């Protein structure tokens, strides 16, 4: 894998193994609690289905790529 590949905003891709994990947890809060108890830096996201579960709007949103 070439490390020259860039992501959006010109950010370099994160290296998986070379540094301590700094995790964003999207979903089950227990996984964030586990990481925090272990001493890993983690930010939990209080996720909810897009557009309050409205499938038509969610589909439109995915087409508009937010």
């Amino acid at each position, binding site marked *: *894998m*070439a*490390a*020259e*590949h*860039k*992501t*959006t*905003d010109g*950010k*370099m*891709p*994160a*290296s*998986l*193994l070379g*540094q*301590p*994990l*700094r*995790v*964003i*947890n*999207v*979903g*089950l809060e*227990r*996984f964030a609690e*586990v*990481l925090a*108890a*272990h001493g*890993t*830096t983690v*930010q*939990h*996201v*209080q*996720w*909810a*289905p*897009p557009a309050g579960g409205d499938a038509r709007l969610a589909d439109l949103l*995915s087409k508009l790529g937010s």
Partner: protein
Amino acid sequence: MIRNEIRKGFYLDSVALMRAARAIAALPGIEDAGMMIGTPANKEILREAGLLDEAGAQAGPGDLVIALRARNPAAAAAAMLEARRLLDRPRRVEAGDASWQPRTLRAAVQQMPDANFALVSVPGDFAAAEARKGLRRGLNVMIFSDNVPLAEEVALKREARDRGLIVMGPDCGTAVIGGAPLAFANSLPRGDVGIVGASGTGIQEVSCLIANGGRGISHAIGTGGRDLSAEVGGISTLAAIDLLDKDAATQEVVLISKPPAPEVTRQVLARAGRSSKPFTVCLVGGKPESALPANVRFAGTLAEAAEVVLGRKLGTYQGALPKPTGGQLIRGLFCGGTLCSEAQLILQRSGLDVVSNAPIHGTERLGAQRDAHILIDLGDDRFTRGRPHPMIEPATRDVPLGEALVDTAVGVVMLDVILGWGIHPDPAGQLARALGGRSAAAPVIVASVIGTEADPQVRSSQVRKLTDAGIIVAPSNANATEIALQCVR
């Protein structure tokens, strides 16, 4: 009746005063209340609201007027007491926005711009979109969620490859990176064995056997169950091999999967062959098709993979076996899919016909059969859609367990008891309770406990709970299967 009290030389922000007044107005017997600094304009407001009396009218612009209108003197007195208490309580200093939690990955990255990893466990319908957001922000992503469409997985992994990132999953239940436990993961000693696994519980069994055998793990990278399919082409597996190859802490690599698509097998073996590190390739239920590279050894079961790494045979159950009950059938109820596969393989090798809802090659798919050796993977997608995984909620195993206990054709029930972070705090205790009322004629119960002493459940304590309940505990899933065989022979 109106009551006014004046506090001389008192200042509090008008908003704080309004909040306090609202609290007083809500007290029993109080019709209305106001707390205002005694400027002429404010006194006029209080007068128009019917709250000002002679005393209040005397207030000066530096004074606070506490004004209330009550239905009776008792209510007025109580309310005035409360008003004084509200004004006099010490101001607390709160931690500010320490309690704020972002609602989107986007806001979370804003908050933590040096984030480097996203762990996604939202419902499968939404997981791909979240994973994509992570990739676009330069994060490596692990997708615990299952029921993610295959086409999404392919698109995500191609995008990850283009961006120099890895997608671990979907359906990736376990990973341990630099010792950090991701989703369901065991407390493992750090060491030099690196693991790449398409199966979470496969990673758990092999890593625990290696750990309990005295060696340590550098990293365990999950790839998700479909990574080695023809459609996905092993993108994440190849990426993981690249990473472990470059990783100074890793001296040898174990690859764990069910048998991949043939072309993918060739690619993976070729890539392993280009490494300078020794590889153990564990394809549960399969055999390699072509000659192996010199640095690659093959293992057909999880136990064999651990034995190759440790360089010795694993321990086996040494205790007495209970008297057979007469039932001729083996019933397996597994939380771990690869443990179910391993058991199928071992029974097949012994010449048995096996039926399963997650069949390996040579196993019949479960339909209406009842008169057969049936091994169930309770973590299969079809079971988990809309329901908690049995590793999070072991009670999902109770119903099929209860059926097996009263089925006289069943001679032995096989179970896996999986420990680790993110998992139920006492699976052995829960199981012992579920089995507590079973009759003397019930089938023999054989279990293996996948975990380490350092896990939150503490392996030895879980083993004790099971043995106290009359359950036979084998040191590995493979050995548990061999014991089950003996019970019906």
